[in-house]
């Protein structure tokens, strides 16, 4: 087990170094100059001299190899430098924004799990029943409509027509808990719907497969109550693939909640990444991608751990 963890840890470090180096080089290959972009926002014209002076201030006049080594050295002790745009340490911004994205994903995941697993199980136990057919049809719609369309519809319905919720934005939980939850509601439901459709399908398919096994028949034959059979013998065994998919989705969502964040003005990490790319704020882009990669690797690692807990036959 320890040996396994060590191996994984080393591999993770190596992967992070590769990711960091790729991202560093890609940023210098794609065109665009942060100094010029900052001084020419909204079509303003900036003199060449002003741009050169700002480049110097940003440290972009140093040789590439110096910049690369500084980046590696910094990253090694979690110092990602300052944003080129407003000089705030990048680590600080990530510490502020990452929890918001994670909060959004977890809230969505919670909604997805509490709705997806029971309904998937129910549908899987009675395939072809009216419940199964209704939810499966609704699910087909959900899976084909992208999140930003649902988001736009939600804002129109709940904010503009019904005036139940604000149109979007963010306040911290500490300054106004109720408003915080209200603002979280729509984006979380949007993420949750996406996860629901995936979890529902996985659960349904998995339960369908499990219920035909011999040991289920045996359990029923020996007189166990139906609920117990379902909970202990069907659902538990069906959870394996669901854990994998949920783990993968968590990682993917870390980078792809951007549309949801953008539509609802939720100031999370992926929204920051997009702005940073647009502004060519190199230190921020590098740091965010490194952090997201690290989390992705970590989640995968945890998925394997949970696997072995659920199914002791899988030895690490």
């Amino acid at each position, binding site marked *: 087990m320890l040996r396994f963890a060590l191996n994984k840890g080393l591999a993770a470090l190596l992967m992070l170094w590769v990711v960091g180096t790729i991202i560093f080089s890609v940023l210098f290959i*794609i*065109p*665009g*100059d942060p*100094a*010029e*972009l*900052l*001084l*020419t*926002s*909204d*079509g*303003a*014209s*900036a*003199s*060449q*001299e*002003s741009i050169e*002076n*700002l480049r*110097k*201030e940003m440290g972009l006049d140093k040789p590439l190899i110096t910049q690369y080594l500084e980046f590696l050295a910094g990253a090694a002790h979690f110092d990602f430098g300052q944003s080129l*745009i*407003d*000089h*705030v340490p990048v680590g600080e*911004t990530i510490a502020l*924004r990452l929890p918001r994205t994670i909060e959004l994903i977890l809230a969505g995941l919670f909604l997805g799990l509490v709705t997806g697993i029971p309904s998937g199980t129910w549908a899987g136990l009675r395939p072809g029943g009216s419940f199964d057919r209704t939810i499966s049809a609704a699910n087909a719609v959900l899976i084909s409509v992208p999140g930003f369309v649902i988001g*736009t519809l939600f*804002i*129109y319905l709940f*904010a*503009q027509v*019904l*005036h*139940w*919720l*604000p*149109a*979007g*934005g*963010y306040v*911290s939980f500490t300054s106004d808990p*109720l*408003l915080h939850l*209200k603002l979280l509601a729509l984006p979380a439901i949007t993420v949750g719907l996406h996860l629901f459709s995936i979890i529902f399908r996985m659960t349904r398919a998995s339960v369908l497969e499990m219920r035909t096994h011999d040991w289920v028949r045996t359990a029923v034959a020996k007189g166990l109550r139906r*609920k117990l059979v379902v909970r202990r013998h069907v659902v538990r065994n069906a959870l394996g693939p669901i854990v994998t998919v949920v783990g993968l989705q968590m990682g993917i969502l870390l980078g792809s909640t951007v549309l949801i964040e*953008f*539509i*609802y*003005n939720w*100031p999370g990490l992926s*929204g*920051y990444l997009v*702005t940073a790319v*647009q*502004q*060519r704020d190199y230190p921020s882009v590098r740091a965010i991608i490194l952090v997201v990669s690290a989390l992705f690797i970590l989640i995968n690692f945890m998925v394997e751990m949970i696997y072995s807990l659920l199914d002791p036959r899988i030895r690490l």
Partner: protein
Amino acid sequence: MPDNSGLNFKPTRRAVLAGIGAGMTAMALPGRVWAAEGKTLRYGLSTYPPSITPWNNTGASSNYVKLSLYRGLMGYDSEANLVPEVAESYEWTDPTTIVFKLRDNAVFHNGAPVTSEDVIFTFESIIAEDSSAYLKSSLLNIVKVEAVDEKTVKFTLTEPSAVFLKELANYCAGLVWKGSTQDDPIGCGPFTKTSEERGVFIEVTRFPDYYIQGEPTCEKIRFTAYADQNLRYAALETGDVDVIEYLPWAQFDTVEQSDTLKISSTVSPFMLVLFNVANDGPFKDPKVRQAVGYAIQRQDVVDAVFAGRGEPLTGFPNPPGSPYKLSDASIEYSFDPERAKKLLAEAGYPNGFSCRLLATSTYGMHQDTAAIVQAYLQMIGINATLDLPDWATRVKKGKEGDYDIAVHGLSGYYNDPNALWPLLHSGPASYTRSFGFESARIDELLEKGRATMDEAKREEVYKELAKAYFEEVPQVPINWRAQAHAMQKPVKGFMAFPGWLNSSSAYSFDVTELS
């Protein structure tokens, strides 16, 4: 075996409905409490200001916030008239010398009085060797700034300038206390920054010692960024904010017909075509560039891209609100494909040619305008391939001349033809000018116009410039586009400043009231 009867929850239809009902009531109960908040003006920005350094131009949203914190010697009143701001009065003692008398009661946010020394510090920093200030190149005509006494300061210029005062009223000319550090420049504007959450909002609070008694009229302004234009509009409609900038064109009608909202709009920036004339391609010939001018049906762009909110621009982009009358049908384009084809034939391209048309996919209006221009060019035999990179790449390609023809949108910051200087006067390559284009005639006229103080004579100079603009073809104009703020009906005093002053509308925050 544990007793798990408690887990046997049977969802009945009634229970579920009751639950949903209770949840929705809970969501709806406190209703719109967050909408009513005393005298805080809630302003919806189009983007979170990348930085709020007083002298760098980092975009329209930053400039709005900046004008609430920093003010310069000159400014605008709530009717958009040029007036002394931190200065109480000014006097030209000779054509190249101007003396400003500072207000006695003007103080910085740290309590220090505004003195001549602060003015000197500000302008010396702006034109310093290593400065990245927006106005640096414009203000290099300052020979020296001297203190006559504590509250009187004298500027000496290299030559007379008809626009010097307008430049001083720019949002990048705010006075900064001389003891400020680079990270914390202290200004003397009507508000001070009191709280901020990066990427979310900036809140400024009334500065009690502001030099104009009774202003500003609101207690606080909370600037919240809504990057998505539809969400920004939704936030206004739901009452989350009081004023929004850059109202989407598609929503103009809705706001005009609304019972609760109103609009303040002006015709401001213009869309245009730029050319790469550096290589020996077809666009080196002014006739080919003029052909492009005759090929485009401008009203189509206004209708399709800007929902009809704009005007075709057929000649010299004399800013709306400019004091000079420069229009003249003989030096303006019309939609005349035959003439365009004739011009192409005269230039030696009777069968047209192929080229690359650069715009950006970052801004829908640039992309859509480019698509229409492409279609019209097709009609006169020019096959343009669209190149639509993201904004950063587009800026770079424009600056390096990596295009044949480009669609762009531009504006100045005051309503005088001289505001076109950075867009027309030759200088180091810029994505805002046709690549490789230089005209001694245009340069000379711009210089002459700036140095002429007599209004009648200036008008003559700019008539000549309008002619040169048509004949030398540094750019082909397409249309003016409307720019609007939308706000709740009870908001009083805030208005979109006319024409190119639009970017200075934040001066009217001083008298904005929420009734």
